[in-house]
């Protein structure tokens, strides 16, 4: 930071509020009251008033200190994220995670380099031992555990319970996955609705792959825009194991919303469902046209899982939209965001009042809470703007309990104005068709 000339320090120190005020101005004029300082800190003043308060604060060290103490330690401005390219984003996330881990103050510099060297050595040894086999769907492995579970009768159940099976089953399953790969289609469970729980497996903390197959080929036709199905879920431990798995993670989350008209209707529903499964797993659904077998690969076979992931990754198209792998949740009134499919969470927004609900669509995120608190971010939570819905003299002050984002033309893939519908605790419904500029109360 550039230093200012010392004379500037002196002039700033010598400045006093009373010098800048005209004669006869009262003490209450000299110091803004607590109301004004609060409104200033909350960015709720008009431009004129704000300039007046700033004029005083520039001269008054005591009021500056009051303002500094009165501002809560909230991280309103979150760390920037997002690129448009899915693969680039996955790489960035991987790099960022590695950098954070390596640059953590808990890590001594020598340990960082040792860890880096060890990682390079492991990767090099794997490449040397298994040259050209990394992209196979199922490399031979004596330690892997493959379990078969009952196929889902219908609907998008991803719940599973790993049951050990014979090695014959393992081979069959792996063969099926390998066969399914070229024509696999990744798409959304067709009837996933709000409140429907993607039940996490009992041993959710183990890395696993879930392949959910379905018979309904007509649904695949409906979603012809999306590629054909494959899905997997794996946990944080598996992702830590290899860089490729993180990349697949981004792709896997991209699968959560198929790039079709149905996406806009179900976009909001998917995110909570995925969150209910966090932080244990993320789902990727594998659909084979005439096979109904669901396969689970446990986290103990990490290399195997990674290879399957790589295979699935090859079949995945790049997602056309960004921010698809940002996952949201609300914990203790604070909106949190995960960039790594629930592996780690960061506070995205802490408001004056506890937040209660949220809705997201692509980079558009809305969150609401007690006392009419409503915030909007158009860039996946990088910046937030407080929205105060009002109609003439009536303002939204009740607790916001539910938010819906509905695209007006659900058949259009072109980003356009979305209708925001806000429900409150006293059964009011506020809606805005222009991104929150004007509101209607129903």
């Amino acid at each position, binding site marked *: 930071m*550039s230093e200012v000339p010392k004379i500037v320090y*002196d002039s700033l120190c010598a400045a006093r509020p009373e010098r800048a005020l005209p004669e006869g101005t009262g003490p209450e004029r000299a110091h803004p009251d*607590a*109301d004004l300082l609060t409104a200033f800190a909350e960015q709720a003043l008009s431009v004129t008033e704000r300039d007046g308060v700033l004029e005083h604060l*520039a001269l*008054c060290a005591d009021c500056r200190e009051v303002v500094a103490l009165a501002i809560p330690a909230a991280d309103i401005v979150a760390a920037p994220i997002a690129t448009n390219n899915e693969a680039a984003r996955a790489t960035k996330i991987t790099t960022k995670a590695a950098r954070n881990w390596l640059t953590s103050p808990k890590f001594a510099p020598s340990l960082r380099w040792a860890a880096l060297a060890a990682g390079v050595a492991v990767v090099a040894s794997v490449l040397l031992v298994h040259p050209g086999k990394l992209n196979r769907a199922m490399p031979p492995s004596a330690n892997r555990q493959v379990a078969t579970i009952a196929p889902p009768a219908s609907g998008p159940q991803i719940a599973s319970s790993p049951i050990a099976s014979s090695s014959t089953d393992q081979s069959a399953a792996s063969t099926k996955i390998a066969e399914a790969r070229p024509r696999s289609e990744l798409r959304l469970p067709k009837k996933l609705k709000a409140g429907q729980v993607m039940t996490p497996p009992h041993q959710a903390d183990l890395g696993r792959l879930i392949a959910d197959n379905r018979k309904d080929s007509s649904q695949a036709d409906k979603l012809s825009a999306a590629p054909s199905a494959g899905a997997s879920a794996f946990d944080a431990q598996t992702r830590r194991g290899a860089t490729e798995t993180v990349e697949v993670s981004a792709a896997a989350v991209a699968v959560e919303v198929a790039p079709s008209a149905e996406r806009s209707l179900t976009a909001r529903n998917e995110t909570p469902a995925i969150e209910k499964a966090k932080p244990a797993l993320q789902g990727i659904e594998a659909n084979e046209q005439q096979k109904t077998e669901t396969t689970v690969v446990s986290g103990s076979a990490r290399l195997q899982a990674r290879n399957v992931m790589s295979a699935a990754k090859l079949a995945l198209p790049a997602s056309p939209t960004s921010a698809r792998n940002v996952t949201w949740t609300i914990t203790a009134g604070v909106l949190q965001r995960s960039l790594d499919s629930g592996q780690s969470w960061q506070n995205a927004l802490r408001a004056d009042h506890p937040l209660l609900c949220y809705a997201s669509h692509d980079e558009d995120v809305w969150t609401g809470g007690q006392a009419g608190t409503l915030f909007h971010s158009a860039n996946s939570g990088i910046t937030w703007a407080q929205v105060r819905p009002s109609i003439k003299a009536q303002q939204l002050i009740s607790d916001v309990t539910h938010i819906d984002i509905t695209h007006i033309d659900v058949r259009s893939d072109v980003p356009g104005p979305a209708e925001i519908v806000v429900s409150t605790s006293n059964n009011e419904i506020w809606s805005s068709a222009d991104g929150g500029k004007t509101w209607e109360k129903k």
Partner: protein
Amino acid sequence: MPISAQSGYGADIAAALYIRSGAAAYDVSAEQFAAILDEILRKYFDLAHNSTHASAEQKADFCAGLRLEELALARACAEGNERAWQDFISRYRHKLHGMALHITRDGAHAAELADSLFADLYGVNARDGVRRSKLVFYTGRGSLEGWLRTVMAQEFINRYRKQKRMVSLEEQTEEGMQFAAAVPEPVCASDRTSDRTSDQRLEAATDEALAELSPEDRFTLASYYLDGRTLAEIARTLGLHESSVSRRLDRLATGLRKRILAGLRMQGMSHAQAAEALETDVRDLRLNLRSRLMQDSGAKTFPEGKVPAQDAGKGSN
């Protein structure tokens, strides 16, 4: 409900504001609430803005922008409504302790500060036999929680200053402070006149350069260079990103130097002389800066020994 004499807006808007506030739940009548809004309008429109001719629509918009629900709660608490106090305690009791801990960074002091503020909010200290709650000063411009935090910060600073003033000489000696007569700096008599002239021109150029800055820029400078606030703190205060504040500070530092040099040249100095004056003055100004920093600004900043928290809202009365 009759149209408020002060507000001027219609009865329907007044009724809508009253309903929105939920004041009825705390036994605050529509007339009482309209009187509260009148008092706030008087404070911010007549006294602060000196704009007695604000339109009814402007006033209605202003009132609509207030935190009416929290205003009703605060005023009902000030009136001693039991249900309002129950709501207030359930909402803010724990938060007050959290705020105090955030401000004091010390558990014992935090409890003391929070309890003290709670007593002030309840109005333990009766004046002329009437219990006076500090909540009557809340006007709903910001959130009630933010207002409580601000009042608490003011109270903390006031307490700290009081305690600082009451430290005995023995305690200061124990802390290692040494008391000795100040040794005057030897000043060469022949250089006094020229130095004084140079200082005056430098001060004038600096004051002029600072006066050209916007209030926000001056606030940013003072917060960073005088108060030692971090970029993150300043950014949060101004609602900006840290990088914006950083860029602004760089721009200000560079610009100020240029403006001061230009000002010195305008007063007849050559570029070399101006640069020399700016650099030479650094050594002298360290002494000036130190002497100015040693001044106790408390008495000047808060006239009559009152804290801003106690003065808060007096303009409305």
